[in-house]
């Protein structure tokens, strides 16, 4: 794939999105959908064609990705805000699927809980709250007509062109097999074992389980894990083992792969061991946002009589009427 093909595909995609944006024109929307989907599909096929022969074909990734993109496109083009929000749920669910495929199951489920469960509900709530008074006809004018779509599409798709260029075509840009790009598997695995080392209770349980399985005795009650420089687990590049002293007898136990900490544990470890300050700051940001939201929402705007009437969907009072009586009666 050469850059020019990629750029042309981006232009086609932009035209497709532009056509989808045209409101209430079924035919152009179909054409636009076909163009956009074609461009995406073309690039994806090109990428898949470059896969190594023995690599598994990422079917699920492609399906979730297409669903996410379709949801996103529909979300930004749908004239009715509530539908747009619901399409965003599609995006969130598809992204959660991709997270799962990327071994980030903890984040996948928290994404669904936090985004689909909390944030989006708030959005919907506010949408309902605000939508009610303004448009009785269902679609407000400002929701149907996009604002300066050409400029926005140019900017957005230039960005896309550059980003996809960087992701797909730059040598060594994101190629995991490029030299120096990813750590050796052994190093990554050692890091994980070291996380287990930092979880002494879990290590104890694991060792106890191993000893249970090993020994013919009914119970091995007492054992101590020997630590050298605070490290219990020794990793030789292939196997991880611990030295255990059981009844004054030293034993070397090889830990099974299943004893590795889970993904959620790894994230938690990273969160508290590597980024504790950031974690605190995030907490403070949330607290401040809560305060801010409370302060903002509490502020009362004193509207005049006419403005209140307008807000309530009524016609404003005429100026030459006696406002005292008119105000009293209404």
């Amino acid at each position, binding site marked *: 794939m050469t850059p020019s093909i990629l750029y042309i595909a981006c232009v086609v995609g932009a035209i497709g999105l532009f056509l989808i944006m045209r409101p209430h024109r079924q035919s152009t929307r179909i054409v636009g959908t076909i163009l956009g989907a074609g461009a995406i599909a073309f690039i994806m096929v090109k990428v898949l064609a470059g896969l190594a022969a023995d690599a598994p074909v990422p079917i699920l990734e492609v399906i979730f990705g297409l669903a996410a993109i379709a949801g996103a496109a529909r979300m930004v083009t749908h004239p009715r805000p509530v539908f747009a929000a619901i399409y965003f749920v599609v995006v969130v669910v598809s992204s959660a699927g991709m997270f799962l495929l990327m071994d980030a199951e903890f984040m996948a489920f928290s994404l669904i809980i936090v985004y689909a469960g909390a944030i989006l509900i708030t959005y919907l709530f506010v949408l309902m709250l605000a939508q009610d008074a303004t448009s009785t006809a269902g679609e407000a004018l400002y929701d149907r007509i996009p604002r300066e779509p050409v400029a926005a599409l140019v900017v957005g798709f230039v*960005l896309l062109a*550059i980003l996809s260029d960087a992701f797909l075509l730059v040598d060594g840009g994101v190629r995991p097999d490029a030299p120096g790009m990813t750590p050796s598997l052994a190093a990554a695995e050692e890091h994980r074992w070291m996380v287990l080392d930092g979880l002494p209770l879990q290590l104890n349980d694991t060792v106890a389980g191993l000893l249970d399985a090993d020994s013919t005795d009914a119970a091995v009650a007492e054992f101590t894990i020997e630590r050298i420089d605070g490290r219990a687990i020794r990793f030789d590049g292939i196997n991880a083992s611990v030295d255990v002293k059981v009844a004054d007898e030293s034993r070397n136990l090889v830990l099974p792969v299943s004893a590795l900490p889970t993904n959620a544990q790894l994230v938690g470890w990273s969160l508290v061991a590597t980024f504790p300050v950031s974690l605190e700051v995030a907490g403070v940001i949330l607290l401040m946002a809560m305060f801010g939201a409370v302060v903002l929402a509490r502020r009362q705007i004193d509207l005049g009589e006419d403005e209140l009437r307008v807000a309530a969907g009524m016609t404003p009072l005429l100026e030459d009427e006696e406002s005292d009586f008119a105000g009293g009666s209404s």
Partner: protein
Amino acid sequence: MLSAIAHTALATVAMAGGDGSHGLPAGEPFGFQVPIPPVVDEQSFALAAWMIWLPVISAILCGIYATLGVKSRLPAWTTVAALAGSFVIAVMTVSKLDFAKPVVVHLFDWIDLSWSSGSGTAGDQWHGLRANFALYLDGLSAYWILFVTFLGTMIAFYASEYMDEDKGTGYCRFFAGVSIFLFAMTALVLGENLIMLYLGWEGVGLASYLLIGYYYKKPAAVAAAKKAFIMNRIGDLGLALGIYLIWLEYGSLEFGVLFAALQSDGATGAGQYDGWAATLIPWCLMLGAFGKSAQFPLYVWLPDAMEGPTPVSALIHAATMVTAGIYLIARTMPFFLMNKASGGHALEAVAWIGGLTALLAATIAMAQYDIKRVMAYSTVSQLGYMFMGLGLATSFGACYHVLTHAFFKALLFLCCGAVMHGFGGQLDLRKLGGIRRVPGWGVVCWTMLIGSLWLSGIPGTAGYFSKDEILAQAFITEGTGFRILGWIGIITAGLTAYYTFRVWFRVFTGPTHYKPDESHGQGGHDEHHGDDHSFHPHAPGIRINLVLAVLSLGAIWLAVGYFVGDIWGTQVWIKNAIENSSAGTGLQLMPAGDHSTLLGFEPHTAMYFISGTFGLVGLTTAWWLHCANRKSADDLRTWLTARGWIAWLPRAMENKWYVDEIYIATIRFPLWIAGQALYMFDRVFVDGIGVNGTARLPKIAASLFQPLYNGKLQGYATSMAGGLALVIAWIVWVWMRGSV
């Protein structure tokens, strides 16, 4: 950067002149008294630090009082107590001090720098600048600190009554200023190095500025304060340059190190005695001294400084601060003597400028009507005597005169202040008369008589002895026209007696008449100010009288002490203090065996008669013109102005020899022209083309992009996203890929 260039340039020049032929012949003893190196002694002189800290504490307390809004006399008592404490400590310190053995009392490390030229080669030298906050106690500083703290205490006590009308913030401000002044003055006098001296030097200048401008709502006072400050800047430039050159030449600013360097004999130190910088040092120091001590041509600020409250005039502009110049030259006397020994003329310049200033100021003082101004010009004149003494290499005479002058001039000023205070601000001697007979003015009258006698140098008074010490020296020391200078001094002595007693006779004798100053008149008195007795003066209170009495007793003691030979004998004590210090004069400047004679007598003996005669002649003339025949003074003036050939004389004297006008024409006007030219340049080129023109460029550029700023949120967002896209494009295409 600039200083580095200047450093290099000056160093080069100094090098170039270094092999001049002015060096002393090797082996010949250099004839000035160099004190032995100072001993660092913090144990037995630990208390001395409080001499400098007490005024600081007092200044801080006065500031706190001002913040708290204290309306009582608390600031005055605080200041008086602090200064009295300083004085007591000074007495205790000096009584322990052996004048021949200077002592350094280290307070704290202040400046300690060292660096190399950085070349790293073998010849790379380490340079350094060390100036510790330390006191240098020797005869000279002991002598100075005694009378500075004593007069400070006395005058602060006097001011506690004098400033009564300003109780409140102004009172606090005044005494804070006095405390700051005393701090700076002690730092100046006691400083162990030239940096500390300079700190004190600038500090007294600041205090002087603050106190002259004390009545800051009065335009004349503000102008006078600015004038004093700016004139002093000129002198301070000289001092700063002098200090810099000293550091450049000797690599140190500590007195002990400097004197040791100067003392070193010709074999090792000959090179240090000459060179362009070394020749220039005394001239720079002299400029500084002339600025601070109001000598021609930098004296014009001092008469104007009388706009400040009278205690300030007495303390700062008569007794202590203006003697800082004398102190500076006395302290750095070795540099001047060195200059003379190598064929320079710095000392002669000091003597001549001092003598001529003395004469000039005396003539102006004769024709002034404002009694404080008369005293101010008299101060200039007396300071001229002191410089003459320094220039004639009798630093003993100069310093002795500093002390006597400090007492009697402070006394005179305080008397003038009492008169001004009591008579509604009236200072014009034509509008005052016969105050002697007004009830309650006896002490002022008789103490002022003592002050006048002492200033006039009537035989038997302290001023007589100290002045004669200087005048007689003019006929002993060898130098260009020193004998003529001596006669100028003698004539000046006569004029001094005349103008001093002109004031005294006019104000205190004759028919009693007075009226308040119009600008100070209160309410109903203004309507009939022609009537002498509608205005009721208030006589000075007990505190003013007490201070006046104490000061006159001090003046009398100075005179009586001359005849007493033991430790209480002032002359012996002072001679001991001065000549054991760095100000000790070089005897080799005088012919060894046979002193030159004056009218066939030994000069000192002759001077007793000559100057006494001149003084008495001046006194008699004053008596005749201003007491016995009051009309004749005006007649004389009319007679003089009627004659064309002499009419310029009284007019010039009344107009202060037009020195202020000459200043305006030669300095201020050209500066004004230059200022206008630069102002126009600034307006047209800098402001017009440079600033406004540059400012217009973005405006023009902005008008191109103005349509983008439509106030729509998403419009801005589009611009921002576009910018982001461009940045990422640059990163990907240029940075990551290396080409577009």
